[in-house]
């Protein structure tokens, strides 16, 4: 695959349930980002991974949010006990390394009902 791949593309979940969102970055890219975009809003930084370094979690809005990156490639963003305000598009992006252009996936649209 040439681009960043995200799944699912759409997810509807009930309030209180846990959800997992997956990101497969561009092959060879060591930097991986998660952003959140609420309806009509700008992009909000969530978390950053660079190689084997400890992730930068400074953007995670609460302890219900967590992310991991296995083998320096695929990443999973987990939201526990979802709330309606978690409804948004979750965008993953990757970059050859920090400071280079980042390339986005198409996003995972999450709706909490």
């Amino acid at each position, binding site marked *: 695959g040439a681009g960043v791949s995200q799944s699912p593309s759409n997810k509807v979940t009930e309030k209180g349930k846990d959800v997992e969102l997956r990101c497969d970055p561009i092959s060879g890219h060591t930097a991986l980002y998660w952003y959140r975009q609420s309806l009509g809003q*700008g992009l909000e930084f969530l978390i950053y991974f660079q190689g084997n370094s400890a992730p*930068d979690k400074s953007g995670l809005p609460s302890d219900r949010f967590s992310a991991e990156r296995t083998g320096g490639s695929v990443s999973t963003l987990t939201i526990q006990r979802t709330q309606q305000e978690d409804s948004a598009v979750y965008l993953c992006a990757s970059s050859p390394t920090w*400071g280079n252009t980042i390339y986005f996936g198409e996003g995972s649209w999450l709706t909490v009902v």
Partner: protein
Amino acid sequence: EDQVTQSPEALRLQEGESSSLNCSYTVSGLRGLFWYRQDPGKGPEFLFTLYSAGEEKEKERLKATLTKKESFLHITAPKPEDSATYLCAVQAAIGGNDMRFGAGTRLTVKP
């Protein structure tokens, strides 16, 4: 704190009517300024990276310029297919790892 402000929020143009979008920023040492285009329901699509004041980049009807405080995205003779939201982002040379995005300018080009 790093900040990015884009103006106007929305812009409506007639086909062929040239204009400019503004991105003002404050950052503790600029590593790079990035322009993206985002269509409804899609992820942002990379357009340009600018690294230093005075730099310019062009692609078809778009030209991006950079000063020490702002960047402009000039659109020459736009077409309806240029309609999209244009996002500006900055990355600081030191400090946070994230790219800080503006809220975007929603451009509509009428035929």
